[in-house]
């Protein structure tokens, strides 16, 4: 049977480092010495967002015999690329390097990850693309890294996390958006927290269930920050992709945002349209996981309520597991949306995919 996703663009696939030691050849002398001296090469520096052993971090049949889910190129190629018949897959590395307290170590490890992913993954399969990993708490160094990697057009996005040290819309972060816009790179915001603050707004939760479910609230708050601070006014061609957000929380959030804005819009006078209009224009969402309603007709209704057929992007979220079965596309996705979801919307969002990559 042909995969319904044949020829599609998978906008969220996770490659994982087998361990920090793989970065040693990609670090300069100073940072190699630093990492070895501190013994960081023996640590995998996974973040608490995806504890490797947790069910959510790897679907059972997508786990390699050894190592973390997503760390085996052969398996990823077979399962994510051949398995779904995808034309391109965008690799998003989630790693402690992005969120370290030391800005310089964070930047050094991010540079190494980007060079590693280019050499060990992108060079080995022409279907692979990647997001530029940046030290998200150092906008200046993050912007430098975007400048350094942007010429390799196989990097199609800049990767951030939904919950960082400060809300993503704040002006301190704007050097990142300025660099991203200059190079026509969307900002991919992945589920996850830097854990500088509790991942919920009410305090530290006890269980992964609470933490993971709270991610969609984190995304909503992040969107409010981007809109209210005027990021889309300042950077009118910037695109933002919410990766692994759950999707179906969106309509009620947009209603609430618009309603409240109507009453207190004077606080944010740079918004000359309703906030949802900015979101529909600038923001895209990958469809795994898709917090699906129980009945198909309810799904159609939600799509209608989202109010745009350009916002959703196909993704498998390989190798993460959302307990959705083997189909990456939710049952009941309207037929007229399929081509847009699988191909047209990703191509429009990631304009670099349409051009032959130049290194």
């Amino acid at each position, binding site marked *: 049977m042909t995969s319904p996703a044949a020829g599609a663009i998978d906008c969220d696939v996770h490659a994982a480092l087998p361990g920090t030691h793989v970065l040693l050849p990609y670090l300069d002398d100073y940072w190699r010495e630093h990492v070895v001296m501190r013994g960081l090469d023996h640590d995998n520096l996974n973040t608490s967002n995806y504890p490797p052993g947790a069910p959510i971090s790897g679907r059972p049949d997508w786990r390699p015999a050894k190592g973390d889910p997503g760390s085996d190129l052969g398996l990823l190629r077979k399962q994510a690329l051949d398995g779904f018949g995808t034309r391109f897959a965008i690799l998003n590395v989630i790693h402690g390097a992005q969120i370290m307290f030391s800005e310089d170590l964070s930047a050094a490890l991010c540079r190494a990850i980007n060079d590693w992913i280019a050499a060990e993954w992108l060079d080995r399969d022409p279907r692979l693309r990647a997001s530029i990993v940046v030290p998200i708490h150092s906008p200046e160094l993050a912007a430098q890294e975007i400048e350094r990697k942007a010429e390799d057009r196989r990097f199609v996005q800049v990767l951030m996390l939904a919950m960082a040290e400060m809300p993503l819309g704040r002006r301190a972060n704007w050097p990142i958006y300025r660099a991203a816009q200059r190079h026509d790179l969307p900002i991919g915001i992945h589920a996850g927290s830097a854990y500088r603050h509790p991942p919920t707004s009410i305090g530290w939760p006890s269980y992964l269930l609470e933490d993971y479910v709270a991610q969609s609230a984190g995304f909503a708050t992040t969107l409010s920050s981007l809109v209210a601070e005027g990021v889309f006014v300042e950077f009118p061609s910037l695109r933002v992709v919410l990766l692994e957000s759950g999707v179906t929380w969106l309509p009620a959030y947009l209603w609430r945002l618009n309603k409240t804005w109507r009453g207190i819009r*004077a606080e944010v006078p*740079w918004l000359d349209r309703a906030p949802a209009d900015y979101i529909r224009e600038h923001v895209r969402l990958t469809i795994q996981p898709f917090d699906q309603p129980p009945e198909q007709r309810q799904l159609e209704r939600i799509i209608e309520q989202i109010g745009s057929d350009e916002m959703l992007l196909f993704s498998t979220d390989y190798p993460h597991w959302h307990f959705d079965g083997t189909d990456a596309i939710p049952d009941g996705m309207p037929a007229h949306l399929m081509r847009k979801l699988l191909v047209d919307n990703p191509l429009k969002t990631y304009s670099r995919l349409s051009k032959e990559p130049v290194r």
Partner: protein
Amino acid sequence: MARHVVATLDEIAPGTCKIVTVAGREIGIFNVASQFYGLINRCPHGGAPLCRGRIHGRMEAAAPGQYRLTRPGEMLRCPWHGWEFDIRTGQSWCDPDNVRVRSYAVSVEPGETLAKGPFVADTVSVTVDQHYIVVDL
């Protein structure tokens, strides 16, 4: 259309509003820098007594942080939900094409002209030596 005399000119100072009842309708008469405007006292959103809302300037920004206060005293903020309306046109700020308040033409006439009629003056007695605010309805 009838012409209704609703107030003497000196009754409504610049920056204020007088709510009058004309043909069973409550209408707010606004003095914006000595120009007069009439809006129905009913918010098109939720039916609030709109003309009791706060009068303010228009807060704008061409870019984040570039604040500008324009058109002082020309905006009206609904007391219930805070929606803003342009006193001169009745248009809402949030959805100017679809949400607007019914507005009425208001003019200032000398008593001398009015005395020639026809006009309706339910509550105001017209004398020739004063100026009056007149609503067309």
